[in-house]
């Protein structure tokens, strides 16, 4: 186990920069998730940590040691690939034991390491099978088993769940989290799925266009997004964003471009007169008589909650309500917004003001 540090790490493919100076500190035993839309450089960063891509500038340290010049096999890390990368011509047992076989470990030692790993992952009865004969979830487990047997300093996961169906993904999510709690090995995990990031990570690194947008605990990112990008990326359904300005006479009122007045808890004087974006999470509103009039566009009951898309002024707003609502499309409902849970962003820089 070891800590991992990225210090001003950069990477270009030819003249095209893909990582534009990234600083991340990962403590020993931490479960860190790199999340961002496709093309943001998160996988490249992971592959640089693994040694599969070289580093154009900056330093990567594992356990305090600079690994820039080290070959992948010298970094003592194990990686789970998106397509699992199981050796198709080897049985599950041989796949898991491959790293030990390469080192020339004796049969007894291989057994001693492979058996417990197989047991943890429920693979014992599959040890003689070939990867082709396994289901997606089982292959995923074998790939993890191969990593566990190594007992490496750091586990790397590159979108390991994206080839699984939705139900299995939820199950494997819990399994990976439990595995980390049991092994306590430093883990760096890449995904584009913010739900995976929110549910599994100790710490999330949100990346966008080769840069880190924000680093923090899941709820920290959810409650205090640094900017518009993080605010819109974290949370599902996504945060509502409405363009407008503060009321020049009252910093507790936000006036949308369509002329609707929305409540604000306390905005700084400096926000006055600037073009702003009003952020409102779908769950921070309730239906109440006498609220802001909203026209129902679509209503989606899921049983435990009701999602509703409404038109307020000219803006579409999504709401999630923990009550059953008997509204019909085109009906006007009253919307009560929790002013203390709203955000204000600078429309130009995207930075959060409140």
């Amino acid at each position, binding site marked *: 186990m070891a800590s991992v540090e990225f210090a001003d790490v950069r990477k270009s493919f030819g003249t095209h920069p893909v990582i534009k100076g990234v600083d991340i500190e990962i403590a020993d035993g931490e479960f860190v998730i790199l999340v961002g839309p496709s093309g943001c450089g998160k996988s490249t960063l992971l592959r640089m940590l*693994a040694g599969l891509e070289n580093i154009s500038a900056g330093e990567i340290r594992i356990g305090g040691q600079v690994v820039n010049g080290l070959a992948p096999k010298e970094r003592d890390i194990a990686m789970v690939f998106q397509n699992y990368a199981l050796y198709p*011509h080897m049985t599950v047992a041989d796949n898991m034991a491959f790293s030990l076989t390469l080192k020339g470990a004796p049969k007894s030692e291989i057994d001693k390491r492979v058996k417990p790993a197989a047991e943890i992952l429920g693979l014992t009865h599959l040890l003689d099978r070939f990867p082709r004969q396994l289901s997606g979830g089982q292959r995923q487990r074998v790939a993890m088993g191969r990593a566990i047997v190594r007992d490496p300093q750091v586990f790397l996961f590159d979108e390991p769940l994206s080839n699984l169906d939705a139900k299995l993904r939820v199950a494997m999510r819990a399994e990976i989290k439990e595995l980390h709690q049991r092994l306590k090995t430093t883990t760096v995990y890449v995904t584009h799925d913010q739900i995976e990031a929110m549910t599994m990570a100790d710490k999330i690194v949100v990346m966008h266009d080769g840069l880190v947008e924000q680093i923090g605990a899941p709820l920290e990112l959810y409650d205090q997004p640094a900017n518009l990008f993080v605010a819109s990326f974290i949370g599902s359904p996504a945060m509502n964003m409405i363009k407008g300005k503060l009321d020049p006479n009252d910093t507790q009122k936000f006036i949308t471009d369509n002329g609707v007045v929305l409540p604000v808890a306390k905005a700084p004087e400096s926000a006055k007169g600037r073009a702003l974006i009003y952020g409102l999470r779908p769950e921070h509103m309730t239906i109440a008589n006498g609220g802001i009039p909203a026209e129902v566009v679509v209503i989606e009951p899921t049983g435990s909650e009701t999602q509703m898309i409404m038109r307020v002024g000219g803006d579409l707003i999504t709401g999630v309500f923990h009550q059953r609502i008997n509204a019909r499309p085109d009906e006007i409902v009253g919307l009560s917004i929790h002013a203390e849970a709203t955000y204000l962003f600078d429309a130009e820089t995207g930075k959060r003001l409140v």
Partner: protein
Amino acid sequence: MTMTSTAKQPSAFGNIARSNTAVGLFFMLPAAVFLLCFLTYPLGLGVWLGFTDATIGRDGIFIGLENYQALARDSVFWMAVYNTVFYTLIASILKFGFGLWLALILNEHLPFKSFFRAIILLPWVVPTVLSALAFWWIYDAQFSIISWSLMQLGWIDGPINFLGDPNNARASVIAANVWRGIPFVAISLLAGLQTIPQSLHEAASLDGATGWQRFRFITLPMLTPIIAVVMTFSVLFTFTDFQLIYVLTKGGPVNATHLMATLSFQRGIPGGQLGEGAAIAVAMIPFLLASILFSFFGLQRRKWQQGGQD
């Protein structure tokens, strides 16, 4: 119900037309006729001629195994068998070695990769006779460029007798065959190499494999099925080689480079002994069958390649 009662009783032709099997057979007819005319008939005729004393201009009569009995006592025939096996074995091993090496190089990220891949194919694209003529000059007793270069370097005193000495001649024709055969092996293996996912190599290098270990434990096992197919074809092509030998040496000197194919032709056509020539050609069949069966049973799809149960 009403449908069947009102429908007309189908005619016999209608019945046949409606049967899937009959229609299937009907569509296979052109291919079957083609195969019968151009494959089965010549092969059957060759086998039949082997049992006759036919000569050019005379049909011949059935003489049983007499041709084969004569061949069994014929030292030139056994020389040709030995030459063919030797030629095939050495040339195939060399083609495999060089072909694999070339494929591995071309699979790396090289500048002008597609250009190199294209020119690699040239020896295979050039008509055999043309390249054989080129080699004929290269191996010429007086004007050989190899002899000339080595003499200029001062390494040898006189020209090398490439095609005049039995062992030199064998080595020379093998070299020419290898030169021609490498592209097929290299390009086919390259195609095979490209089906191996990059992530397997990455996983292996993270698992601590050196370059050699990645080749030994990942590349080679995953390439086996393609190697089997490619080398079967390569062995078949080499075993039945004719043009190269016929242009370069015509089987000489003193039959040292006679292959079964060239001997068969020489006895059958210029020599006029159709029956004997056919018998020599038929004698190649067991060897060819053996190599096909070897690749079929020995190198057939491995267990890991077979589909899963789910």
